[in-house]
């Protein structure tokens, strides 16, 4: 078991709900500071978005933060250097796209990630059917390749995803792109339930969790939450690192059992 999964299982087993904030690598000059602030606010791991020119899965906010990062010159190398420099005391998960992984080659890419201290990898346009070469490379470099499951995923396929995911399973709360929306569908609860039947991996709910109330609700049935667009929206609107930290702290608080 790799470091990421050890950490997520331990938290889950201790009854602690996982908080996984997402930050687009290179989005600002001082994005590294935000990693520290996130840890201070109680993040259990941090997803770092590697910006791609054609982010099929992402909604408007992450598209905008990715565009901004690319315009500022973000590359895989520079983002990894900053991660290595900051060396946050929680696991770092690369949130990438298939072409960024395959262009240098899955093995070289995973090696570079591992060298920078990254512990996990999510490739949203690499479904389970296409994952084999990347999964092998990740495994070789002790990276956990976490898979996504969606409300549209059929039962049998959920089982396959749950079985082959590493670190945690990322349950997509609704049919849509990344980004804060109204509360997750009832389908999210159902999806988590199905995944639990197939695996004892922690199940993290993502997509559309924007406010403490939603976080609290998710905590009722999932093992944690990923929060990206809500955070990036505030960042793009000019929030300070302190304000962003405070927002994450609110979410953290909402995840704790009442009383």
């Amino acid at each position, binding site marked *: 078991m790799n470091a990421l999964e050890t950490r997520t299982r331990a938290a889950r087993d201790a009854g602690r709900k996982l908080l996984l904030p997402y930050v687009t690598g290179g989005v600002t000059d001082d994005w590294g500071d935000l990693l520290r602030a996130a840890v201070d606010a109680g993040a259990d791991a941090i997803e770092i978005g590697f910006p791609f020119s054609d982010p*099929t899965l992402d909604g408007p906010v992450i598209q905008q933060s990715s565009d901004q990062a690319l315009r500022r010159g973000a590359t895989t190398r520079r983002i990894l250097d900053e991660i290595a420099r900051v060396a946050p005391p929680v696991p770092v998960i690369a949130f990438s796209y298939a*072409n960024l992984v395959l262009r240098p080659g899955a093995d070289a890419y995973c090696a570079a990630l591992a060298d920078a201290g990254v512990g996990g990898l999510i490739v949203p346009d690499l*479904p389970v059917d296409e994952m084999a070469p990347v999964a092998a490379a990740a495994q070789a470099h002790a990276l956990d390749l976490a898979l996504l499951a969606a409300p549209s995923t059929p039962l049998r*396929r959920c089982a396959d995803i749950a079985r082959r995911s590493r670190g945690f399973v990322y349950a997509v709360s609704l049919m849509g792109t990344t980004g804060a929306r109204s509360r997750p569908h009832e389908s999210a609860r159902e999806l988590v339930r199905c995944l639990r039947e197939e695996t004892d991996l922690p199940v993290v709910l993502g997509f559309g969790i924007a406010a403490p109330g939603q976080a609290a609700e998710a905590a009722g049935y999932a093992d944690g939450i990923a929060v990206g667009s809500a955070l990036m929206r505030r960042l793009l609107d000019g929030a300070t690192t302190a304000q962003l930290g405070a927002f994450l702290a609110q979410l953290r608080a909402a995840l704790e059992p009442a009383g």
Partner: protein
Amino acid sequence: GRFGEYGGRFVPESLVPACAEVEQAFTDAWADPLFRAELRHVLAIYVGRPTPVTPAARLSAELGVNLLLKREDLAHTGSHKINNVLGQALLARRMGKRRLIAETGAGQHGVATATAGALLGMPTTVLMGERDIERQQLNVFRMTMLGAEVIPVTSGTRTLKDACSEALRHWVTSVEDSYYCLGSAMGPHPYPWMVREFQRVIGDEARTQCAADLATGTPDFVVACVGGGSNAAGTFAGFVDTPALLVGVEAAGGAAISAGSPGVLHGFRSKVLQDEHGQIAEAHSIAAGLDYPGVGPEHAYLADLGRASYVCVDDAEVLAATHRLARTEGILCALESAHAVAWVIRAAGDGTIPPDATVLLTLSGRGDKDMATLMELS
């Protein structure tokens, strides 16, 4: 879904079941003689198929070759796009879908999809880059007249590749009742295969026409322009088991095969124009339909196999070829199609095409849409 190392289904998990549903439905439909008969009927009475093969007598005489033009410019809506769109729209109806979604660049595929939507009474949503909307107001108006809703895409370069991404995103949110009608032989499996099958009517007709009506037998060369590559895929499909040399002609500024490298974009693996980091490059061509940084996976495969050759021509050659075909044959072809003409002119001149060889060229569309561009450049 695989063409050697190319193809595949690189989409968000949310869309995998939808792609699988399309695959299953198409597999069933394509094996169903009733579905094929229905499609054949619509292509005949609505689109005007078969389109003729026209010997280009005067240009042939000038070039010293025997040039035959497969006339997709005569199809309803003005290009081969309609063959695929009607196939997919009938499939969508068969699947019980209520709405159509499409991406479009210059608007040709959008107009074709809006046409199919009107014909079958299916509400149609077209995703189109904001910059393309500004440049192609007439096509936007056409789609609106046909009852389609055109949604501006404001992300990225605000052009075709962003519209492709947005169409996938849009599909995710409405996959229950919506069918994504993809415009070229690309995208996640089964699209490259399915679109090729829907376009193979071009090649199948041409093969019969060359043999029977024109008594020219199998052509020595079969030439078509390649952007996404659906007209070429459909044309080549009719001749892949003959000795004909297959030639795909790319735009110099959008030559994914000639100048690209393997990559994953919009749900499939193929050759793409990209930088060292894997960021997708912008393509540039005078022909909006070839202004795409990728290419259908089958073409990447045929290129690797050596079964088809891929060449490219530049904008100046394309303009000259457009004018020359107009003056010698009375045909104002699309700038996309003129790429194929430009290569034949060059290749007949330098001996790549030997004297008196028979060349079948698919004229994928008519040039009306390009008149404003041509006027500005004249």
